[in-house]
């Protein structure tokens, strides 16, 4: 059997620079499965790529419609942005009973959506991260911060949950304002943040979008020199862009204790792409989860394998790291249990999203170091 796996990512549009690395993650997982030769009695996986544009719900819906009804994919890694994901889930995936695992849609709204057990995500809801971030900042003795967020459901959700948590813990948020991605200039935002003041600036944005622009402006004008970076900002690009300038800043992103992520980055390097790119690891995991669930259910029918996703992702069973998909297939074929950990330390909680283990990182001497996990 030839099993088709679809991806619906924003290859054109505002997040177009993130998509290739995400697609590469999916391709990597599929390649690993195929090379093992153990997948469902020698079935092969082909990946069908779709462009969700990230912003255009109608185009995304059409893309997913095509993937499902025309290409006949059995599962979809995607969508990329929450709005578009919701539209294609409700209008296409759900009616057709196809499983979607999104690597990057983090809106809390997706936690409560009516999904008939078809929707999962390998990234945690933003609500949790806000809480963690507040703890980290408090732990460093900083009590007054300014917050800027990218003006979409991710940024807004994260900023709001953070502000609530931080205030509840006794901190002070001097301003909580938005910046739009892809704008020509961020002087106005930087000026406003600087005027509001604070001991650090929380940048709930994307590293290759407005987030970097804000950081750049703040550094240059001396508005802030300590930054707090949530997951959208933590990545190799940040170090490349700013080097030693952001020494003393810190942040967190979802990642497991252990070598899963490093392993994945290494594998990505061998494949010729940047494994540290935002949501690349999550994409790998999303693809792996779908395929392993199929193997566990011994069926590529979404109605059957959707019930296996949680079991594959969680205990009990042997821990599976990136690069060990072959081993996992072997165990599953033998009727055993696995606990998929993967590149982003997948641990699924109801209703089908990762619990969110975060690693705390720190920037020192132009490099990023991991200081702990929460």
């Amino acid at each position, binding site marked *: 059997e030839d099993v088709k796996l679809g991806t619906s990512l924003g290859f054109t549009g505002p997040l177009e620079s993130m998509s290739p690395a995400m697609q590469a993650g999916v391709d990597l997982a599929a390649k690993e499965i195929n090379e093992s030769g153990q997948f469902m009695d020698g079935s092969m996986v082909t990946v069908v790529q779709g462009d969700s544009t990230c912003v*255009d719900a109608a185009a995304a819906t059409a893309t997913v*419609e095509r993937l499902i009804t025309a290409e006949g994919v059995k599962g979809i890694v995607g969508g990329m942005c929450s709005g578009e994901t919701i539209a294609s889930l409700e*209008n296409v995936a759900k009616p057709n009973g196809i499983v979607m695992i999104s690597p990057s849609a983090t809106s809390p709204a997706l936690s409560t959506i009516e999904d008939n057990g078809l929707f999962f995500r390998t990234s945690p809801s933003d609500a949790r991260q806000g809480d963690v971030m507040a703890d980290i900042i408090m732990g460093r003795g900083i009590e007054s911060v300014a917050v800027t967020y990218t003006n979409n459901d991710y940024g807004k959700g994260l900023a709001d949950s953070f502000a609530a948590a931080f205030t509840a813990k006794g901190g002070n948020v001097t301003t909580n304002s938005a910046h739009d991605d892809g704008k020509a200039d961020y002087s106005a935002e930087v000026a406003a943040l600087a005027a509001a003041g604070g001991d650090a600036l929380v940048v709930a944005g994307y590293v290759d979008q407005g987030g970097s622009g804000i950081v750049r402006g703040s550094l240059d004008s001396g508005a802030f020199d300590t930054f707090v970076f949530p997951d959208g900002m933590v990545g190799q690009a940040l170090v490349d862009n700013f080097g030693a300038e952001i020494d003393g800043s810190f942040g967190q992103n979802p990642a497991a204790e252990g070598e899963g992520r490093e392993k994945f980055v290494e594998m990505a390097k061998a494949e010729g792409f940047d494994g540290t790119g935002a949501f690349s690891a999550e994409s790998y995991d999303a693809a792996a989860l779908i395929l392993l669930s199929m193997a566990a259910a011994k069926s590529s029918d979404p109605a059957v394998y959707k019930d296996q996703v949680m079991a594959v992702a969680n205990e009990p069973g042997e821990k599976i790291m990136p690069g060990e998909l072959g081993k996992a297939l072997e165990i599953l074929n033998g009727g055993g249990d696995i606990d998929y950990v993967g590149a982003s330390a997948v641990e699924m909680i109801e209703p089908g999203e990762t619990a969110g283990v975060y690693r705390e990182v720190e920037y020192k001497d132009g490099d990023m170091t991991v200081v702990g996990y929460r």
Partner: protein
Amino acid sequence: MATTRQAAATSPWRAPILFAILALLFVLEGTVRNSMFSGSWNTSLAILNMGLISAITALGVNMQWGYAGLFNVGVVGFLALGGLAPVLIALPPVEGAWSSGGMRLLLSLFVGMGTLAMAKMAWTRTRSGLIVAGVLLAGFVAYRWLFDPAVLAIEANNPARHGNIGGLGLPVLLSWVVGGLFAAAAAWAVGKVALGLRSDYLAIATLGIGEIIVAVLKNEDWLARGVKNITSIPRPVPYEVDLQANPDFVDFATSWGFGAAEASGIWVKLCYMLLFLVVLLTIILLAELALKSPWGRMMRAIRDNETAAEAMGKDVTARHLQVFVLGSAVIGIAGAMMITQDGLMAPTSYNPLRYTFLIWVMVIVGGSGNNWGAVLGAILIWFIWIKVEIWGPNLIGFLVTPLPDGDLKTHLLDSAPHMRFIVMGLVLLLVLRFAPRGLVPER
């Protein structure tokens, strides 16, 4: 001149033939499976439905541009405003929202409007800038005093799930009309300012209002949750899962040789298609009736020569305002329909490239001034816009086959998604080249 040449070559069969070709494309999309077409009726109908919505939008733009020569570059804003209607009309009411600050909010909006009206009155009565400024300032303070706490209260009401004022729980079809009214009201305000003085800069005013409306939708959470999005907007048609659970329907589907999932998708899309067609045809009927009577003659006269029309007793500004409002209302209806079909209101998705420029491309390619041309252009361009997603990469894959494997080839293959833009641009340029007045030019 090219234009005269083309006009001379226009045969009465041109439009029917082009529509037949378009129909054929959709049939091929539904039945044939190869590198060009997907062979799925679901895909085909999905594209068609969105194409019909685009066609209604294009009709609105065509009224403004084709009938009256008004250049509206704020289509995205009016679409977005129309999209607000299903949220405010059809969504079930949010518990506690009205009690926490709804009335106060309404009052504040009322005060805001009143202030503007008072300022206007003060100006006509006294002609004193000072008094007007005073009225405005007092009004603004009162407005903020009412508005700010109300908004805070509403947004604090279960922000993770709601935090907005909520809907009225009315039938969603009603919201299509309301969407039109919203857009019409905004158009009236813009038109009053921009058309009243000079129509020279309508384009920039509409460009601005488009940006402003989208910014308001993004940032005013109490309205429609801002960027946190509204989901699960009620539908006017059955849900697929319900159909699949209905044994009668499953039997019916199998009798036609379809699987239940596929059939349910097709059925729902056909229902939508019917609704959209009714709206589209009604609008065309009304528009053609108006065009073929003295009203249409007057509009053509105004378009031909504003100065002379003014001297012949036609109130050009008022007529421009009328057409601008009507056209925007149609765009607003389309906006509401789109949100209804998507079931989702996501303000971040309203970007001008997709919702203004693409619509303009549709109108110009179809043939401005001609309702059927606008419809044809809209459906065709939408079809291409969706299909180039796979045509582009296929094309580039085909083009690079002779290349030796290497960095260049990989680079090109990696860039394949961007062929979407290139192919779109090529199609547009080709159509403009061979039919500069559009596919179905105005008679």
